[in-house]
């Protein structure tokens, strides 16, 4: 079952079991969710979707808002900033589509910028699950709080879920400290097979685990592999290590208009986020270190 299917199953059960939970939709996902008095489909009106969620939160509900990534995050960005953030009310935003799940749909349905622009708003917990188990766990935890939480679902997923929160160390070695975010873990593990370096996993990217990175990092070289806009977490890492000499390689989706269709695997490869692309980038990074 995909992350998206797991979300629909879990959210549908939550709205029936917990009278605080309300779902707010803009046509997307309606057919996969139960008809219920607290499932509000506002039609193709994303600004209203966020505003309604804010109003419900002011009345004590725990709104879960869901749409395709660009229509959830980018189109109603000012509503996210003001209706939720400035009004200081909580909601769980759950997106689907990630950076290039909609490869065939083209640029209008792709939002590799989502984490970067949400990072610009204070007070958000930003989560990038790499497996359906993680996605469901994040949703259930978010429902227990009144926080502002964003959960980024994707068709891309790792073979296995990772238990534990924060920065999870998976392999230890003297080479660069590699951070794989969400669904980049699979190709990152394949890319680094046989390399003597550290591999860690991160699925809650904001707040960024600065102290955990400082505690775990023994050398100077950091590689972060993010499934969204390249460099999104570079400033966080720079701030975390501001008193230490360090080098950083940020891998992610380039900041460019990418005018190709095809399938997500082709986009992943084109962005250098498949195993061979990640390996080549790490090799170049290591070569420059030796030069």
């Amino acid at each position: 079952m995909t992350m998206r299917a797991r979300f629909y199953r879990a959210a549908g059960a939550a709205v029936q079991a917990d009278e605080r939970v309300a779902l707010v939709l803009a046509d997307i996902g309606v057919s996969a969710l139960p008809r219920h008095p607290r499932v509000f489909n506002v039609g193709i009106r994303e600004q209203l979707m966020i505003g309604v969620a804010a109003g419900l939160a002011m009345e004590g509900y725990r709104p879960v808002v869901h749409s395709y990534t660009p229509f959830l995050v980018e189109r109603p960005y000012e509503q996210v900033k003001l209706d939720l953030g400035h009004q200081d009310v909580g909601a769980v935003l759950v997106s689907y589509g990630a950076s290039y799940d909609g490869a065939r749909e083209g640029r209008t349905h792709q939002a590799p910028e989502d984490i970067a622009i949400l990072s610009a708003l204070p007070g958000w917990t930003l989560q990038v699950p790499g497996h359906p188990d993680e996605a469901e766990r994040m949703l259930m935890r978010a429902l227990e709080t009144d926080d502002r939480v964003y959960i980024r679902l994707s068709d891309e997923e790792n073979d296995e879920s990772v238990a534990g929160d924060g920065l999870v160390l998976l392999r230890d070695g003297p080479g660069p400290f590699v951070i794989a975010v969400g669904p980049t873990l699979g190709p990152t593990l394949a890319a680094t097979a046989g390399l003597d370096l550290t591999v860690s996993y991160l699925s809650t990217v904001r707040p960024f685990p600065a102290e955990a990175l400082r505690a775990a990092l023994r050398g100077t070289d950091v590689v972060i592999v993010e499934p969204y806009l390249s460099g999104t977490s570079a400033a966080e890492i720079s701030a975390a290590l501001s008193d230490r000499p360090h080098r950083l390689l940020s891998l992610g989706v380039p900041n460019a208009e990418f005018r190709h269709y095809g399938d997500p695997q082709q986009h992943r490869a084109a962005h250098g986020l498949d195993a061979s692309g990640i390996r080549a980038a790490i090799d170049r990074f290591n070569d420059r270190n030796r030069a």
Partner: protein
Amino acid sequence: MDMATATELGYDDLPALLTRLTGDEKHDWSALSMLEVLWVLYDRVLGTDDRFLLSKGHGPTAFYAVLAAKGVLALELLDGFGTFDSPLGHHPDRLLVPGAEIGSGSLGHGLPIAVGRALAGRGVYVLVGDGELDEGSNWEALQYAGRVGPETLAVVVIDNDSSTYHWPGGIEQRFALEGWHAVRVDGRDHDSLEAAFGDRASGQPVCVVAEMLK
């Protein structure tokens, strides 16, 4: 509504409160487009469990004056209007202003939030301006609300013809077309305003266009 009663003042006290806010003693306060509607709402209409959302957050002196007159705001807060440590800014912040249900300033946010609160069953009154209705987010909200009909929702439109391209035929016709119970009244006539807010139709939100034409 958490209204203290200790310092409750009357309509005739509002000019002095406005002067206290702005330091301006010569202004014709009756020209403030929101003042009459706000007074009617707070003096005659709002019930204990109702909420008022000021969507048109521009020029909130009338709002602060009415809150102060009703004892929601301490009178001494009026003196620091707009200063660094004052909770009263040129656009209200709900975390700073007692009685402000939403922070507003960027136009077109109050009505969608009000729809959400009305869907939860709350009695909600939201004030927008005719110029504010240029913002498309309002139309997402009023179309949806007109169809699903939360009858605890009331919108008052302050119509001082400030929309650059105007609303030919009248704003109320557009609300009515979308399924609202919509009426136009003289925005300076307190009795007419009160009657309009009380004139509810089953299964429909209500829109009161308060005409404030110069």
